[in-house]
């Protein structure tokens, strides 16, 4: 008969309608899946009792791929078809890969889409597909362990992952047949696992030293929402480097100076790793070198001396995040350690010493991220009596409106957590302007024409006022489902107009990726274009103002002044038509200078008109 779990009071499920949810830590070296059962979050083991699934996939021409330990063992004999550390390739373009490609043994195929493809005997595979194969194994494991289909999952990603990398992770999940409730930042998941989300507003540090990567993040909790204040790290530093250091030490003690063969190196790394793990509990271990009859003793003290330089390298990024976040040590409420290498007493010691407090270590550092993800998944599946955690999601591309000259004013920057609302005031551009067109755009480029147009609407009924005096407040609001509503309100009359749009509507993942790539590629040209447009807009504004003044107060001009002004206006109009922002700026300065006397006289006249027929006493305070 079916096996049941204990539910929260009043939350028993209808049979066959259980909302099974899981949290997945899709790691560079290892992946895990965890779930909440009978109120406790725990990682799920495979049939052999292993919780960690090595993130390695081996492809075959004639049968389905294998994932995990079995694939790792084949990495040596079949390196081209055995894909490891695919997380480093997620959401990357061909160009990025070529930069780091020297270190990767795989054969890449340039597709027509710009997405890197790895040639294997099982066919050409994209990083997304390789990740999907890993996720599929975890999904099957969870569904076997839970006795049902998963309703949805929460997958963790590094805090520094950009939208393309996040989108690639979501695509991998979709390919594996998983519904993603949400992507969660890894340090946030670790904090959630320790229940830090139930604390009051405070700041936490998450120190994550894994097999091959080091990340340190500063999180700020405000009203139940975690915000990543700063991250830093080293993408090539971890437990593997410690093993290599120990292996070198072992080699030094070996008789003879023959370079070890690849097989010997692997063996050395394995015994190094075992020795390092045993020294977590023991004070000294004996290491027997296979085939040599040599036995060496490694003490914890010697180990510490060997690895201290590596641990020291993690402290630089620690200092950097604190500086970036603008924090000093006493402001840190808790330090959480994540990653297998933080099991080592020396690492904990150094972390405690640096941050001035012992880190939280109760939860297995290999599993803490998956456990936090499982807790969040449980809430999102609706298995908790009340939503105990606020929803954390981010918008993939910045949202803004088009201003005069086609420039974009960003109201909500990309990666803002949603729900979010931002408002900004805009002024009228022309005298007597009674309407304003609001053009809502999405993207990272400086010019609206390079961004994606989401919606246009008009605000009518602005009272006729001089340029700059009519004020319109534009509010952007993105709800928890990513729906954007934009409203515009004229502040003196209170008239309002609004529109609702779905920001990512119609944008395929490829398009989002392309838009992000372009924003980086064109950053330089964009800035130049923006400078030019800004000067052009300033020129237009000044030309209009001066023209209006000439019509209104012709009698205030002194002889010859009109010609000078008109000459300067002509020069500016000419410069405005060209593309040199500097020339426009100079022409603006000239026109500004020659109209100064005129402007002063107009102001005096204005004041005289305003006070005409009144007594001085009226202006006494």
């Amino acid at each position, binding site marked *: 008969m079916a096996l049941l779990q204990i539910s929260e009071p009043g939350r028993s499920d*209808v049979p066959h309608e259980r909302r099974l949810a899981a949290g997945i830590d899709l790691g560079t070296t290892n992946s895990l899946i965890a779930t909440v059962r009978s109120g406790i979050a725990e990682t799920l083991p495979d049939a052999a009792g292993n919780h960690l699934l090595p993130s390695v996939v081996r492809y075959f021409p004639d049968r389905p791929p294998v994932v995990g330990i079995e694939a790792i063992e084949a990495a040596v004999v079949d390196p081209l078809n055995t894909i490891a550390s695919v997380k480093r390739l997620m959401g990357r373009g061909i160009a990025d890969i070529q930069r780091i490609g020297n270190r990767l043994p795989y054969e890449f195929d340039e597709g027509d889409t710009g997405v890197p493809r790895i040639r294997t005997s099982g066919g050409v595979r994209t990083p997304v597909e390789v990740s999907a194969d890993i996720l599929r194994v975890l999904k099957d494991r969870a569904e076997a362990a839970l006795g049902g289909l998963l309703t949805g999952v929460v997958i963790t990603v590094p805090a520094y992952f950009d939208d393309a990398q996040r989108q690639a992770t979501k695509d991998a999940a979709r390919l594996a047949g998983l519904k993603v409730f949400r992507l969660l930042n890894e340090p946030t998941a670790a904090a959630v696992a320790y229940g830090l989300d139930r604390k009051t507003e405070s700041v936490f540090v998450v120190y994550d030293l894994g097999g091959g990567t080091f990340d340190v993040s500063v999180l700020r909790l405000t009203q139940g929402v975690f915000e990543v204040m700063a991250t830093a790290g080293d993408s090539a530093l971890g437990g593997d480097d410690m093993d290599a250091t120990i292996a070198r030490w072992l080699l030094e003690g070996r008789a003879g100076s023959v370079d070890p063969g690849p097989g010997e190196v692997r063996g050395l790394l394995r015994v190094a790793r075992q020795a390092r793990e045993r020294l977590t509990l023991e004070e000294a271990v004996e290491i027997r070198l296979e085939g040599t009859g040599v036995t060496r003793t490694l003490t914890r003290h010697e180990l510490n001396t060997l690895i201290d330089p590596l641990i020291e390298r993690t402290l630089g990024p620690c200092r950097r995040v604190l500086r970036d976040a603008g924090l000093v040590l006493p402001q840190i409420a808790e330090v959480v350690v994540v990653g297998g290498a933080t099991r080592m007493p020396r690492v904990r010691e150094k972390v405690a010493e640096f941050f001035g407090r012992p880190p939280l270590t109760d939860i297995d550092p290999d599993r803490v991220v998956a456990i936090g993800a499982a807790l969040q998944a449980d809430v999102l599946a609706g298995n908790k009596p009340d939503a105990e955690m606020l929803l954390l999601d981010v918008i993939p591309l910045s949202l803004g409106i088009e201003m005069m000259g086609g420039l974009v004013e960003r109201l909500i920057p990309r990666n803002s957590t949603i729900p979010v609302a931002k408002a900004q005031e805009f002024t009228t551009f022309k005298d007597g302007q009674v309407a304003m067109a609001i053009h809502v755009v999405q993207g990272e480029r400086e010019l609206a024409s390079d961004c994606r147009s989401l919606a246009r609407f008009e605000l009518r009924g602005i009272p006729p006022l001089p340029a700059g005096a009519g004020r319109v407040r534009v509010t952007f609001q993105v709800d928890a489902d990513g729906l954007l509503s934009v409203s515009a309100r004229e502040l003196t009359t209170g008239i309002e107009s609004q529109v609702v749009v779905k920001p990512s509507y119609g944008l395929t993942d490829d398009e989002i990726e392309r838009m992000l790539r372009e924003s980086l590629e064109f950053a330089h040209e964009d800035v130049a274009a923006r400078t030019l447009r800004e000067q052009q807009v300033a020129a237009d504004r000044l030309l209009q103002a001066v023209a209006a003044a000439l019509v209104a107060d012709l009698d205030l001009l002194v002889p010859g002044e009109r010609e000078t002004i008109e000459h300067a206006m002509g020069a500016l109009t000419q410069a405005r038509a060209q593309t040199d922002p500097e020339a426009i700026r100079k022409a603006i300065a000239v026109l500004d200078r020659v109209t100064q006397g005129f402007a002063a006289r107009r102001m005096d006249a204005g004041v005289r008109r305003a006070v005409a027929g009144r007594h001085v006493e009226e202006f006494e305070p």
Partner: protein
Amino acid sequence: MPITLTEVAAERVQRFLKGRGKGEGLRLGVRSTGCSGKAYVLEFVDQANPEDLVFESQGVRVFVDPKSLVYLDGTELDYGKEGLNEGFRFNNPNVKGQCGCGESFSV
């Protein structure tokens, strides 16, 4: 007949209660639903209802409402594994038939 827990089940319940950080005990119940008519309820108890009957087995307090007791009389709650899956199992002497998956039953 009382409602009982096996030693394994009791040990699990204790652990889950401890992990949850609060709770008076365990509620066993039955409600009408499912393909065979009745389904089990297995929940933590934060507050007992006045009409609840309370049993104590292996150090765990078990709460049952009188209507459910009719169907659960003499039931033993066990904990076990099936492949990778693990969870609680109702050994209920009153059951005459159950649906294929065992999540609902008839008496």
